[in-house]
Every structure is written in C-alpha cells, then in structure tokens.
C-alpha cells in the first residue's frame, strides 16, 4: 500500500523523527459522499501534522474535495514555474464508476501521494497556497476556488497548444522571419525528445498493466463458474468420482476469491503507480511549455528592445521632444527584458535540478511497485499451488 511516507525520499522528514527536526506530513483519508444527484461529490479529510513555525499548530484537520486539490495544483503551477508539479489523478471518470469503491480508493490514494510529494519538496513545501490548502476553513476554500480565473483552469495540454499557436504567430509577426522561436540547445532537445517518447512507452506499459488486472478478474470469474459446474457434476455422479468433483469445485471457488483479491492489489500497487508515472511525465511536458513561453517572452522583449534602441537613437539625432518619453519607455522595456531573462534562466536552472530529482524519485517509485507486483504474484501463485496440492491426497483416496 502506498502511504504518505513513501514519497519522503532523501528527506529527513517523518512524523516519528525527533521534534527538533522540521517535519510536515499529510494524510488524505475517509472519503465521504456528499450532496445529491448530479451535484454529488466526494469529500476527504486532510490531516496535517507539522512543526513548521508558519503553521497554526502541530495538527490540523480540514475537509477538502477534488476541486480544492485542483486549485492547489494550479496555483503551484503558476507560481513555481520550472518545478515539476506533482500530478493529480484524472478529473473525469465514466459516470457509473465515479462512486465505485475502487475508484474512490484509487483517487484517495493518488491525492494522498500528491499532497505528500508537495510537502516533501524543499521548495514547494514553503508555498503559502499549500498552507492555505491545509489549514483554511471550508468557506474560505470555496471562495478561493470560485475566484479562479480562466487562465488558471487551463490543462497542461491546453498550454502546450497555446504555446504552439503563439510560437507560429511570433515567428511571422514580430521577427518577420520564418524561423520558429525555440531554444537551440541540443541537450535540451534531447530531454524534450526523451520526455515525449517516455510518455508513449509508459502509456503502453500502463495499458497492459490495466489489462492484466482485467485478466485476473476474468480468470477468477471463470474459476468460480467452473467450480460451480464441477460441484453440480459431482452431485450428479455421486460416490468417489462425485466427491472428487465436488472437492475440485470447492477449491476452484476458493481460488476465484484469491484471484479477485490479487486483481485489486495489482490495480492499487502496480497499475496506479504506472498511471502516476504517466501523469508525472505529462506534468513535465507542461513545464516544458512554460519554459518555451518564458523563452519566447525573453526573445520578444529582446527584439522589441533592439527596435526601441534604434528608434531612440534616431530620435536623439533629430532632437525630438519625444526623446524623454522614448528614453523612459526604453528603460522600462529594459527592466522587463531583464526580468524575462531572469525568469527564463530560473526555469532552466530549476528544470535541470528537477529532472535529477524526478529520475531518482521514479526509480524508487517503480522499484517499490515492481517489488509489490512480484510479491503479489509470487504469493498468489503459491496460494494456488498450495490449494491444489492439498487436494491430491483426497483424490488419491477417491481412486483407492
């Protein structure tokens, strides 16, 4: 089971460490269905334990719903450009599954992981929005949620699209050239290529993982049906053979239950982490979009500045009255340009740090997922072998 401690990698934070060590640990628990009909939703209890001075106390419990988590993610995405914001589980689900126990549990787990990743990230954990999220009362939260302007609601995919659109506009209008405004950094190109390819590979692996869950369920079902049929046949046959069939039937039904259980474990501990991996890569793609935006802005401003400089020189030569005005504009523009450059360079720096962290995080996450998968499969296979083996002396007795 993935718990909150799982993502506390490399950090010394844990609720059990001595009080002098700073810690922030969060649990997302107790999903409860609220509301009626179309407006029904799930609310979660979010329990924060911390000794951070900025927080109101050692423990705080609040009630949050999915859209509150989305708000948090969007705020972080806006404010912490360059960082890989941890991914959220998907927003929509097929209507009939929306309140299935399994879906709710999977979502709860993913939300728990989400918050904890933020809480254990040395920069993101300082976020004021995080504090608000973890501590504010429900009315405040609701108010903040409804203040969301359109731009914050854009999904990363939308941002990428925007970036692409803007990109083509810029190349035609501002520069008057055909070249797209992109970094010519070969290493960065390699990274981008890696990220996009990785998503494809992971999506495929996740697809098969999901199918494998289904196969477990199907095998369980067929064992159950076979068991019933065997029992009926046993009842008809009677005597030794009948008894043997009945035993086999009963055993099949027992194993069917074990298979269903393993299917659930597989879903939670293997398929979900893979999905999470895919989401994380999508989050990186959003950051790539942000970086492209920042780069474009920087280029734009640099170009505009050049033009303004030329214009200013021209004005100075002609001793126009507009020189002062132009100088002022130029100064402002220069500041903006420097700001844009700073922003861009920050993103570049952060990204290179984040990518290291990301790779390490994923190696660990996958390592755990693989371990759980292997353990689960070994356990299941063992159970099946044991169950059938126990039948053999009985079958012998029937033959005698």
């Amino acid at each position, binding site marked *: 089971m993935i718990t909150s401690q799982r993502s506390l990698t490399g950090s010394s934070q844990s609720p059990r460490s001595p009080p002098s060590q700073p810690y922030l640990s969060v649990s997302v628990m107790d999903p409860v269905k609220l509301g009626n009909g179309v407006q029904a939703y799930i609310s979660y209890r979010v329990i924060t334990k911390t000794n951070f001075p900025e927080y109101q106390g050692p423990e705080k419990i609040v009630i949050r719903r999915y859209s509150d988590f989305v708000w948090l993610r969007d705020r972080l995405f806006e404010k912490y450009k360059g960082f890989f914001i941890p991914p959220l589980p998907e927003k929509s689900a097929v209507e009939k599954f929306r309140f299935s126990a399994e879906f709710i549990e999977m979502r709860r787990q993913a939300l728990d992981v989400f918050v904890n990743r933020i809480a254990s990230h040395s920069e993101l954990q300082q976020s004021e929005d995080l504090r608000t999220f973890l501590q504010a009362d429900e009315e405040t939260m609701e108010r903040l949620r409804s203040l969301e302007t359109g731009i914050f609601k854009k999904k990363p995919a939308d941002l990428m699209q925007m970036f692409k659109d803007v990109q083509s506009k810029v190349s035609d209008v501002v520069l008057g050239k055909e070249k797209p405004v992109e970094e010519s950094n070969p290493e960065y190109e390699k990274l981008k290529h890696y990220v996009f*390819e990785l998503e494809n590979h992971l999506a495929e692996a996740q697809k098969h993982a999901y199918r494998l869950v289904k196969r477990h369920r199907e095998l369980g079902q067929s064992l159950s049906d076979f068991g019933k049929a065997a029992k009926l046949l046993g009842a008809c046959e009677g005597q030794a053979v009948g008894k043997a069939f009945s035993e086999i039937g009963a055993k099949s039904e027992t194993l069917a239950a074990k298979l269903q259980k393993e299917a659930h474990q597989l879903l939670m501990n293997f398929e979900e982490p893979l999905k999470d991996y895919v989401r994380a890569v999508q989050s990186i793609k959003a950051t790539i979009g942000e970086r492209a935006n920042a780069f474009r802005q920087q280029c734009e401003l640099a170009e505009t500045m050049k033009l303004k400089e030329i214009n200013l020189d021209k004005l100075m030569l002609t001793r126009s009255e507009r020189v002062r005005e132009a100088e002022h504009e130029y100064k402002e523009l220069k500041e903006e340009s420097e700001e844009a450059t700073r922003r861009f360079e920050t993103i570049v720096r952060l990204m290179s740090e984040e*990518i290291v962290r990301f790779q390490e995080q994923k*190696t660990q996450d996958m390592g755990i997922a693989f371990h759980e998968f*292997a353990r689960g499969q070994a356990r299941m296979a063992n159970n099946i072998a044991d169950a059938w083996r126990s039948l053999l002396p009985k079958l012998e007795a029937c033959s005698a």
Partner: protein
Amino acid sequence: MMGSENQGFQEAHLFASREEMENLVLDEPLSNLNDHQNSNSYSSYRSAISSLSNTTHHPMSLPILATPADSDPLLSPPLYLNPNAPDNNSYIEPPSYADVIFSPFDENSFNGLESTSQNPESSLALSRSPSSSTYYIKITVSNPQKEQDTTNSLVPGGNTYYTYLITTRTNSPEFGSSEFSVRRRFRDVVTLSDRLAEAYRGYFIPPRPDKNVVESQVMQKQEFMEQRRIALEKYLQRLVEHPVIRLSDELKVFLQVEGRLPLPTSTDVASRMLDGAVKLPKQLFGESTAVVEPHEVLLPAKGGTDLLRLFKELRQSVANDWGGSKPPVVEEDKVFMEKKEWIHDLEQQLSNASQQAEALVKAQQDMGETMGELGLAFIKLTKFENEEAMFNSQRVRAADMKCLATAAVKASRFYRELNSQTVKHLDTLHEYLGLMLAVHGAFSDRSSALLTVQTLLSELSTLHSRAEKLEAASSKIFGGDKSRIRKIEELKDTIRVTEDAKNVAIREYERIKENNRCELERLDNERCADFLNMMKGFVVNQVGYFEKISNVWAKVAEETSGYAKYSF
C-alpha cells in the same frame, strides 16, 4: 555508456516478431526447453511419467504401468524427477511437482500454439483402462488424395472425391500383420458406421464424424480436409478401443481389405422407399407374406424396406402412448428408466462443465498473453531508458525493469504451457459428452426392439381373437364350413409364424438389454477411472506450473527487496 546487459537489446529492435523478442530475453530456460524436445514426449501426463521412467518402451504403446491405481507416479515423485528441470530447489518443500512435470511436449506448445489439433494422438488412447486389452492398436489417418470415380459417371470428367490413407499399427494376433494401410473415402466410413449400428444394437457405438456438407462447401479446402482427417482418426481410434467392436469383422475388413470396401452399402432412402412401396400392395392383397419373418425382426422396422411393418409398429407406438396400455414385457424397466434419466442429467452436467472448462482455458490463455505483452512493453522501456540514460538512476531503473520484464515473459510462457496441458486434461469432459450420443443410440436400439416385440404381441392377440371368432362361428354350423375351416387353418399358420417371430423378437430385445447393461457397467467403470485421471492430471498440472511461476516472481521480489523498506 551502455552496460553489458544491453547487448541483447541492441539486436532486439531489429526483430519484428514477438516470439523472437521473447527468445532473446529467455536465453537460459531456452536451452532447457530444447532438451525436453529431444526426449520422448507425450500428450498426457501419464505418458510423460512413463516416458521418463522407461525410455526403451515403444512410444506408441500403452504404458506398461497400467492403470493409475496400480502404480501411481504421484505416490513416489522422486522416481520421476525430470533431470532437465531448471529449478531443482523449488520454493516449496518436496514433493515438488514442478520437477515432475509437464515439460512443453512439442515445439507447438512451446510456441504457445494449441497443440491438440496438431497432435495426432488421441488422449483417450492412453487414458482408457487397458485392463480389457493387453494389445495395442493405433490408427493414423493421413495423406488425403484426389481420386476419380471411374464407374457410372454420367458426367464426363467424372465424380471426384478424396481418399485418406488409413494406417493400422498393432501387435494383436487378430490381424495378419503388425502394420498395414488402406485407402478409404468418407462414404466408406459412413457405410462402416451403418453396418456397425445394425450389427451391434445396444452397444455404445462411438458416433461417426458428421458429413458436414455445408462446411465442405464453405470452408477452405485445406482446413476442411484437416478437420475431417482428425475427426476420422479419432473416430477409428475409438472404435478399436471399444472392447467388443474392435473384434468385429466389419471393422477388420474396413481396416485391412484393400481396394473397394466389401461391405453392403446403405442404399439411398429413396430406393428403399421404392422397394417398400413395391412390396406394400402385395402385402395388403395377401400376395406376399403380410407377416414379419422371424429373421426380419432382428432389424428395426425403421429404415427397413418393410413399410407394412413400419406402419404396424408406428400404430403400436401410438397405442402405447395414447392407450396407456401397459406393454406386457416390462418389469425392470423402472430401473432402466431411472438410469436413463440419470444419464440425461449427467449429460446436462457434462455439457455445463465442458462449457465452463472452455471458458477457463480461454481465461488462462488470455492471462498468459497479456503477461507476455506486459513483459515486452517493459523490455522496450528498458531499452529506451538505457539508450537515453543521462543519469545513473535511469540505469538502475532500467535494470529493475529488465528483471521484471524477464520474469513476466517467463511467467507468460508457463501460463501458456499450463494451458495446453489443461486443454488436454479437460478434453476428457468433451469426449464423454460425445459419448452420450452413443448412449442415446444404444437406448433407442432398445426402444425400437421393445416396440417390435409389443407390436408382435398385439398382433398375436388380434390374430387369436380372430381365430376364436371364426371357430365359434364355424362350430355353430354342423359339419363345418369348408371355406371357414380353410381360413382357420391359414390363420393358425399365421399365428405360428408370428409366434416364432415374437420369440425371436423377445430374444433380440433381451440381448439388446443385456448389451445395454454391460455397456452401462463399462461406462461407469471407465468413466470413473477416466475422470479421476483427468482430475489428478489437472490438479498436478496446476500445482507444478504455479510452483514454477511462484519461483520466477519470488526471484524478482528478492532482487527488488531493497525497495521493501519504503513500502510500509
């Protein structure tokens, strides 16, 4: 940049086929499987056991180990330890069935293909209790060839048909030699089947393959021929395994006599009806015997050329059903009726179980396939991460993935092997379901024989009452009435003949009843033995393969145990 572990993957992307990808991953178990292919391999677990213990034994013969009750290999597994088994220290304490097992028996199951269709051996060949036959007979059907019908071809170019080579191998002294072949066409098989049905009333005669007229037009030639070839082989093999039918002359003639099949062909229904229609007027007008000759009662009325008899029996069966008249020849019919109902119930349960068995097999197959696909997806990921690695954490992850992927591909193989064995075991259910058809045939033989008896009895009583009336009438006339007396004499003759026929019919009915009884007993015994075998085989198979699968995953769990501390 790339570790040595990547060598296999450098070539991997060049191969399109999944099989080849899998083969690359599994260098180690591959060599073991090759070993298995070289040893004698069989299609049922019993034969596997016997092959391991007795390699000098003729591969085609019935196992000398006789019935499972005698020397059950399960009681002493260490004797049968497969030296080629890759894992000799199993995850669980002995007896480990992983070692006893189910190597992939032929290349086909290795590749995950269903091998039942390609394996000519019928699983029943070795699963029947051999106590009734100490000799073996094995039939192979092969080599379909196109031939021309040279005689009475109305159409120029003639009638073409296919013949099959039917080869018999036996050490039974009933046959002249130990191996011989003949060519037969499907029509000959129909003839054989019809003759056997007439000669062996009351026996559970294995049903012959369908004519499949529609399929023969619709299916691909190759496919249809293969389907038919297999069906013929199974049918003939079952015939020779039947303790009574194997001794029949008809069968011997079919298997041995070269050239045209010297058995009377079943005439068309049309020409039969024609014959019967010719006879009827004569019968009605008293020109030919209106009476059933004794020898004729040995065959059922239906399908014969004696239409009058057909009508009489039909009337009788109607009388039976509607009149509610209790036929006098009854007594222990009640036991039989109970047995018949039980057989009906058994058939239903068998059908149900057979269906669920098929679903189970499909689910196991799917599991294996998806597991394999998952493995391959991870192999691709591993290769990708290694190629694009910028950090060591990626290489570590790639190594972990490879470990998982390899295990998944191995497990996938095991699932598919497990499944091809499961198919063979559970096939017994299908086989017995098919046998139910033969049982119905035998029961209907009995019913029609009984009907013949009843018809004759009722006819006799009619004749007797007619005779009584005539005698009563003629006794009133002093001196007698010449014509009436003649009539009485004729009537008495008819009665005598009919009496004889009745006796023959009763004897035949009793004979068929006895056949039924013997066959039911044989069915009970063999069925119990076969089903118990099936169940043991199925269970041992499951145990063995799941032990192997468990081992595979246990290794991965071991290798990734470093991450365990983060799980909780």
